[in-house]
């Protein structure tokens, strides 16, 4: 089994409509039923981010995101699948259901 990250690309936060939320809920059920579910969640806006740099032992906190981009990761799924060809159609379904573009990325295998 391999794990994959499906991240949702968006330019606004919490912008899913009710219909989209319902479709996402159904998709989550399907992931659970198929044994693919690991975790999923939506993220608050990038402006709420805090960049923390404590590499030299003196933490510095910076208000705001590390990268300023128009589009960002608005939420994500972590799924489990035997191989890429199982993960890919799930990512396609994720994109369709949440009505956003998504990025599919494998985790480094342990």
């Amino acid at each position, binding site marked *: 089994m*391999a794990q994959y990250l499906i991240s949702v690309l968006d330019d606004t936060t919490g912008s899913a409509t009710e219909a989209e939320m319902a479709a996402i809920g159904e998709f989550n059920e399907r992931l659970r039923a198929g044994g693919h579910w690991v975790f999923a969640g939506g993220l608050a806006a990038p402006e709420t981010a805090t960049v923390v740099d404590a590499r030299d032992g003196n933490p510095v906190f910076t208000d705001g995101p590390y990268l300023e981009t128009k589009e960002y990761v608005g939420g994500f799924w972590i799924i489990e699948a035997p*191989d*890429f*060809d199982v*993960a*890919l159609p799930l990512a396609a379904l994720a994109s369709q259901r949440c009505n956003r573009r998504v990025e599919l*990325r*494998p985790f*480094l*295998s342990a």
Partner: protein
Amino acid sequence: MTDVREVLTRVHREEWARVVATLARRIGDLDVAEEMTAEAFAAAVERWTADGVPPNPGAWLTTTAYRRAVDRIRRESRREEKHREALMLADTPEPLGVIDDDRLRLIFTCCHPALAVEARVALTLRLVGGLTVPEIARAYLVQEAAMSRRITRAKTKIKAAGIPYRVPSRDDLPARITGVLAVLYLIFNEGYLTSDPAKEAVRADLTGEAIRLTRLVRTLLPDDHEVTGLLALMLLTEARRPARVSATGELVVLAEQDRSAWDRDLIAEGHALVRACIATGRPPGRYQILAAINAVHTDARDARDTDWSQVAALYDHLVRVDPSPIVRLNRAVAVAELDGPQVALAEVEGLPLDGYHAYHATRAELLRRMGRGGEAREAYDRAIELAGNSAETAYLRRRRDQLGGW
């Protein structure tokens, strides 16, 4: 020595893909599979020269490559070793796809839709075709280092993303085979009309390789009529290659080609394949229709005997399957022969193909036939600007300059 070289060249052509594919299945690593196969061929040069060619060269190569792969993996880290050894010992066949052939798995892996199209082409030529990285780089006008990176990156992605080494299931097969055929057709077209003005206009090595790989796919999937259609299309196109460029390096258009120079054997084979497709009675796909169009052209002893109404009917059919502006542009050429240049021009005007040289070349020819020389000249200029192929540019220049005082 010469004999061994000749045998090696032939065996390389026939066995490369099989050895890489077998190794890839048994050790689960495309990178190692490819490197060890290359090493086995290098070893063969020495051994076969000294000891003679073994009775079964393919088996000798597979065994040698496999032993080297095992040695190599043993030298790797402990964890990797355990993992791979487990894989090797088990040697469990994957759930069987539609056809259980290692080469077919290899082709589908190389042409996976999650890889960039250029990477699919490069990987297919390298792993299935057995071309060297410098050869592929030369064919696609990329620096060797860049091509090497492209191939490495694709192989890394296959490994890291867990792209399986498998023939798709029956349900997924039609969608995936379309991508495979597109890659093979891209390779063929790059050979047939090289995109770079600095290269020779026609690259027989690439068209030959594309045909060889398509033949291979057809032996593996004999019932897929689009595969047959693509092979027929390639053969009927390749048949005209000897007549396609003049002694002075200028493109010779279909109507002006010396038809006695066409390869009759390839035409006969192509026609037989087209007939076989038609005989199935199933609705033809894009490649079958294109092959049928080429069959009509190659059927005519003289350009004037071309059955244009049949060509136009086939294009009508193609428009329904693939309503792209390029298909409509090509259809207009047949329309011009049947209904005259005015009708054809009306259909061509406004197609969203301003960046495509053939669009301007077609307009130029139509305008010329209508006596609108000034506009034709402008269209030729634009076509010349956009055309990448040296023979094509030479042809367009001559046509433009013939307009004379207009």
